[in-house]
């Protein structure tokens, strides 16, 4: 897919995110929308995957450490052909495979269950270390929120990744500057994030997390870096693509009403 096609795909992802959260009547639009471009690049361009064979041993792994952005991952998986797009309507409903937070045993294409912040990045470390032990070339990607970086476990994992020279691991931080209680900077400052990651032994890349080409380049650079893991700090806008959701902490975990969804979908058309 070329850049224009990827941009169009990201838009589709965003439409599906809005539609499924509206149908569910609950969920997390803000952090799903901020992650949409990065997930598009991973799922439609950079990751080695076989949707028709989700457990293919040659696949790259993706761990959504910020599991509340499940709608973004579900949209990517459905649009990539892992399961029917219509199933997205079942999000968060009783007996649905599409649980509020991703469950690996239920959904094809989900390798790791998440939802409790801070744990996904450790699981990703385990995957990357295990692949190293087996001398396998698969790459592991994990995405975390910037608020999530306040969890101590995140730093335990990052220390581990650098210590074991996990250059098959790329940690992407969705740096949208908001968490539930407000601005990350005001709630519990994590800056200077780049310097911290650098001091922890990471190859640190800064990108505009909504610029498809910039994301592509960063992921390529991460893959060629030898001897240490890469952290991509993706500067993003929470709620990106829907004007009234952008940069609003209030849209972290609130579903749009039908008329709001209609407006959102018009903007995303």
């Amino acid at each position: 897919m070329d850049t224009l096609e990827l941009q169009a795909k990201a838009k589709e992802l965003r439409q599906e995110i809005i539609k499924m959260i509206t149908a569910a009547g609950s969920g997390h639009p803000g952090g799903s929308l901020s992650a949409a471009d990065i997930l598009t690049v991973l799922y439609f361009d950079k990751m080695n995957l076989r949707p028709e064979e989700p457990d293919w041993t040659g696949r790259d792994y993706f761990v959504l450490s910020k599991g509340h952005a499940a709608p973004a991952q579900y949209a990517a998986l459905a649009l990539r052909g892992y399961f029917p797009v219509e199933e997205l309507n079942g999000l968060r409903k009783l007996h649905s495979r599409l649980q509020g937070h991703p469950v690996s045993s239920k959904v094809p294409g989900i390798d790791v269950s998440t939802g409790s912040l801070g744990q996904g990045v450790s699981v990703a470390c385990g995957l990357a270390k295990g692949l190293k032990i087996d001398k396998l070339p698969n790459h592991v990607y994990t995405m975390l929120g910037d608020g999530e970086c306040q969890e101590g476990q995140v730093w335990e994992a990052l220390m581990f990744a650098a210590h074991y020279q996990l250059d098959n691991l790329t940690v992407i931080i969705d740096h949208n500057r908001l968490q539930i209680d407000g601005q990350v900077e005001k709630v519990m400052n994590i800056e200077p994030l780049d310097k911290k990651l650098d001091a922890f032994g990471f190859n640190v890349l800064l990108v505009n997390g909504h610029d498809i080409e910039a994301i592509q380049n960063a992921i390529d650079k991460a893959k060629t870096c030898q001897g240490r893991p890469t952290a991509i700090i993706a500067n993003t806008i929470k709620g990106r693509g829907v004007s009234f959701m952008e940069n609003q902490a209030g849209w972290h975990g609130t579903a749009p009403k039908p008329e709001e969804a209609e407006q959102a979908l018009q903007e995303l058309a």
Partner: protein
Amino acid sequence: MSEKIATREAYGQTLAELAATDKNLVVLDADLSKSTKTCDFAKVCPERFIDVGIAEQNMITVSAGLATLGKHVFCSSFAIFAVGRAFEQIRNSIAYPQLPVTIAATHAGLTVGEDGATHQAIEDVAIMRAVPNMTVIVPADAEETRQAVRQLAEYPHPAYLRLGRLAVEQILPADYQFQIGKGTVLRDGKDAVIFACGLMLGKALQAAEQLAAEGINTAVVNMPTIKPLDSELVCRMAKQCGAAVTVEEHSIIGGLGSAVAETLTENCPIPLLRVGVNDQFGQSGKPDELLTEYGLTVENIAAKVKEAINRK
């Protein structure tokens, strides 16, 4: 019908009321203040509100430091993260040194709803009950929560206060007096006794009502304190009724059901059946759908009462 209020709402309101009189009160949260309702306290008393960010282990252990200075500490997150993520901090830094910290955890049980199993704590009471020095309280409605929060603010021991997300009706009578460690007989009976806590108390009373229509005279006891259990009351009602059922929005392992079973087995064995989550994870769904799906219903309680009576 009374206005429905979630126990977490009552918690936030009471903290805000206490802010003016209890100058020693400090409240902590881990990026969920709008959900746990500690934001109500933060609004009126920002200088004694501490948001630690998404760092539950740090929140619990910072609380230990504050309590060491003699502060009355309430700290809040969702039950799954407060108890789950920070268990060992609670055990070793709060309970072992007997610090007066109340871990007021909200969004407990299945009625978290759509967020699904990762967010539905069904084992938190079991975990907290197993820790020495810990008091465990599960209020049934807003008024009971208000009284519990006021008493816990003065309580010189570690405590776990389990609160819900869902708005619930006022269940307890207007003259109800909550007392830590005491259960209350809300309805007397002789054929069987139901021990209940939290949002299942209302359903237990409804079940007793249904059973009465069938000529079965069932007592209902509110058991807000799971630990220390009011063993005296449990045994007295057991002897009076000869069959018992426990009802809770928690796993049947380790919660009220287990506490009552332990007491009865050692002191006055009678047939006992437990209504709760049958050792399985929850899932996404609407709160009421989930209660039905997992058998936390009036019908199931009534059926279990009959079964217990049959085993006499």
